């Protein structure tokens, strides 16, 4: 039988927050967020098969204030998870483990995700303005 009281290795709360650990946790968090996003994607496509009223309701839900905030969150999550995923593949290839490279690529990931999110918002709000 396993001894339930055996000592555990030091856990998250005893470490000083660092960009490396923060981005690692953010990768998983955005992944879970995007799993929920996949459900909204399904709802959006399915709503369209139920006719104009159901689709208009879906569009109105996404267009509401909370809907917009949620979509911004999904947008940032897509671009962060994408950029950090590429960072993971660089590590798979053995590149970028040095601390200075980890920090540089980490910040690049954040900047990329923020910039692409802003760019998407520009496209979305100009589409909304033109419609």
């Amino acid at each position, binding site marked *: 039988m396993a001894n339930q009281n055996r000592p555990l290795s030091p856990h998250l709360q005893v470490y000083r927050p660092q960009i490396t650990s923060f981005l690692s946790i953010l990768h998983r968090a955005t992944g879970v967020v995007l799993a929920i996003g996949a459900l909204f994607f399904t709802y959006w*496509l399915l709503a369209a098969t139920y006719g104009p009223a159901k689709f*208009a309701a879906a569009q109105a839900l996404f267009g509401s204030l909370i809907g917009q905030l949620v979509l911004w969150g999904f947008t940032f999550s897509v671009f962060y998870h994408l950029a950090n995923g590429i960072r993971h593949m660089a590590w*798979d290839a053995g590149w970028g483990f040095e601390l200075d490279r980890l920090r540089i690529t980490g910040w690049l990931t954040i900047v990329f995700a923020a910039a692409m999110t802003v760019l998407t918002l520009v496209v979305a709000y100009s589409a909304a303005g033109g419609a």
Partner: protein
Amino acid sequence: MQMRSYLGRSRGLGSANEGVHHWWMQRLTGVALVPLSVWFVFAAAGLVGADLTEFKAWVGRHGNPVMLILLTVAMFHHTVLGMQVVIEDYVHSETAKVVSLTVVNLLAWLCGASCIFAVLRLTFGG
């Protein structure tokens, strides 16, 4: 000291008997999702405020149905692989683990099939 048999080493399947399959499929679907997700985000941003007629026209245009179906397959496959790791890390009860893995898998199949059906219906249906 080498603790594994030569046969086990040459098979290269590891203790879970699946080798690098999970890792490889996660990378493969991830690479596919790079262009697919960027394409989708900007396409969806352009569909803000669209009505059903405009939406149907977009879904059925040129390569869009194929892109949407590829996105659906890669996205749900990648989601299942990722959620599996999260569940295995945090759900310690064997029963809860098996149940949640099953639910996530079947839900992904259900949603994936629904998305593909919707794309086909919006493309070909009246």
